[in-house]
């Protein structure tokens, strides 16, 4: 499906990357990934026909040359990655406790074995063209490692920022490894500065060892015409992962998030919030795969559609043979604020065991007129009433365990997107 021009652009990018000074093992992984990519298909995202969108080609058109990332001014990111430029301002307490962070280039130098193992594992698991290209073409990212038995209470903030002046597509990978009984919270902001037309490919790969606990917040504010986000986690025994994904991107987007509940008693929650406006099309594949017995998974997706946008929530749950006593539940809800918008909430459940609890709920509806009337009857303008009802609807999907200040920041961003589109 990839057009000829795209193929040509990709080949050029690959050639350039292979000319970089890099260890042989990495070049080999890249070449293998490249070969896999050429055999694999694009990811299947039900109800959204995205396969003809330009996804790989480097476009030199820049939509807007304006530095609009207020984020950097407000927050001192502990890890930031602006194009190929990295900056690190780890809190002292984090360093003292033994949190390790490496840029992609540092990881190649300092922890080649860990990086290599990860990439080989990721390549083995890659079953779509896009994933394989991401590995072949990655040029930036972070490797974050928490040693066994280390609990970090502060939030680690990460900024992944695409730069439009890059001639290549942006392929970034963040790898997170939590040792046994360890604990971490991550706030990962993904943005584009200045606004760029180049496609963005971002991967997040998480490994949780036994009893590890991670809270991952992803605040996505891409401005590229096309963004592909692939987040994957593997959970060992009794580990816990809460994903909180907030999609406020401005272009088209495919977002995939998967928790592999491998260990017995592992638990994962995936909360997704998305707002689409104008002509945007966003498709989500949100997956919970229960392998381990007594594992527990929950998907909660809520979206709001404005203008002529399109939003699809696919919620995919699979309980594998042998996963006794598991729990899998999902809720996918969409609120349409425009009659020109189109949305789909699409739960898919596949169950291979009997002694499990699994359920799903889905709804696609308009804003409740009685609720608007009630609020307006107390003097609130229609716009204000609508804002309250909509943010109320979305905020039910913000995990209550999230730090208050962060939750406020997320709500502020949500309101901004609702107002500005």
């Amino acid at each position, binding site marked *: 499906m990839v057009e000829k021009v795209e193929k040509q652009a990709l080949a050029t990018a690959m050639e350039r990357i292979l000319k970089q000074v890099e260890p042989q093992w990495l070049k080999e992984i890249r070449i293998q990934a490249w070969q896999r990519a050429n055999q694999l298909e694009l990811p299947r995202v039900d109800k959204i026909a995205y396969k003809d969108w330009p996804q790989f080609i480097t476009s030199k058109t820049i939509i807007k040359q304006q530095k609009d990332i207020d984020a950097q001014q407000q927050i001192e990111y502990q890890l930031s990655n602006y194009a190929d430029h990295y900056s690190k301002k780890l809190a002292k307490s984090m360093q003292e406790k033994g949190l390790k962070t490496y840029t992609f280039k540092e990881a190649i130098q300092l922890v080649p074995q860990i990086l290599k193992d990860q990439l080989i594992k990721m390549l083995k698991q890659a079953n779509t063209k896009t994933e394989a290209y991401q590995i072949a073409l990655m040029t930036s990212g972070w490797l974050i490692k928490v040693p066994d038995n280390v609990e970090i209470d502060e939030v680690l903030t990460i900024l992944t920022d695409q730069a439009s002046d890059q001639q290549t597509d942006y392929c970034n990978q963040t790898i997170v490894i939590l040792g046994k009984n360890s604990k971490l919270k991550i706030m990962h902001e993904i943005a584009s500065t200045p606004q760029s037309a180049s496609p963005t490919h971002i991967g997040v790969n998480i490994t949780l060892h036994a009893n590890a606990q991670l809270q991952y917040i992803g605040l996505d504010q891409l401005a590229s015409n096309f963004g592909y986000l692939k987040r994957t986690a593997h959970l060992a025994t009794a580990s816990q992962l809460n994903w909180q994904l907030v999609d406020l991107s401005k272009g088209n987007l495919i977002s995939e998030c998967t928790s592999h509940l491998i260990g017995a008693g592992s638990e994962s929650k995936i909360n997704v919030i998305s707002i689409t406006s104008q002509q945007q099309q966003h498709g989500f594949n949100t997956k919970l795969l229960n392998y381990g017995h007594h594992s527990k998974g929950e998907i909660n997706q809520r979206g709001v559609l404005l203008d002529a946008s399109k939003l699809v929530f696919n919620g995919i749950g699979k309980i594998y043979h042998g996963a006794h006593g598991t729990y899998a539940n999902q809720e996918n809800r969409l609120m349409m604020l425009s009659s020109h918008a189109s949305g789909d909430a699409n739960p898919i459940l596949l169950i291979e065991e009997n002694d499990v609890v699994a359920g799903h709920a889905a709804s696609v509806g308009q804003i409740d007129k009685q609720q608007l009337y*009630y609020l307006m009857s107390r003097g609130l303008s229609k716009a204000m009433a609508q804002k309250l009802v909509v943010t109320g609807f979305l905020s039910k999907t913000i995990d209550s365990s999230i730090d208050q200040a962060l939750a406020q920041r997320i709500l502020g961003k949500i309101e901004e997107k609702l107002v500005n589109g």
Partner: protein
Amino acid sequence: MSTLVIRQLHVAIVDNETKKQTEIIKGLDLTINTGETHAIMGPNGTGKSTLSQAIMGHPNYIVTSGDILVDNVSLLAKTVDERARLGLFLAMQYPVEISGITNFEFMRAAMNAQRSPKEQLSIGNFMAELQRNLKMLNMSEAMLERYLNEGFSGGEKKRNEILQMMMLRPKFAILDEIDSGLDIDALQVVAQGVNALAGPKFATLMITHYQRLLDYIKPDYVHIMMDGRIVKTGTGALAQELEQTGYAHLRDELGLDIKLVDED
């Protein structure tokens, strides 16, 4: 003094599916001045709630003729929120539940909506006012952190309506069956809340089925509504009389040709 005038009002309700209009209010006149307390009583399905919703401007209720005016200004072209900001308040028979918005957040937004951007309430003043009113209504602060009316018991919803009224201090408060679902003690508490607002700048229009509410909130006028009109107006004594004789008796006495819901 402010005056709410309802003049020869006709209201139809539109069926959402068939779009068919049915006339419910059929030529109703009523004048309420601030400083006065009015009560409306009448059989089920007579149009009492319809009247209150039409005054507030609910989009499903269409005023087909007549007018509703506050101080000689017609409300008909005004939006619901404009009417509220002019001083109208409707405690609804069935308050709506809204998930995801806390009672606190909502009340603060409503209070500030009445005020210009420069005069927004400080959180301190707001809290002080809120706590005073909560206390009068025997409500716990925990109710503020809950989502708006979500999972509230029938009586809690009614108290919450009165709390909003006390915070917003309207000129004209329409209380649609504020007494239904309240236990005996709660009835007194709610009445206290309403009476606390009484004064020359405040008028109440209570819709009720029970004479007992009128023991606690003393009306100056009692109106009996049947088939979309006010058929008789009197004082508190009229309500007591009616309790004895019933609506059918009154209808026959007035020689009206109306079928009541509970007749066969």
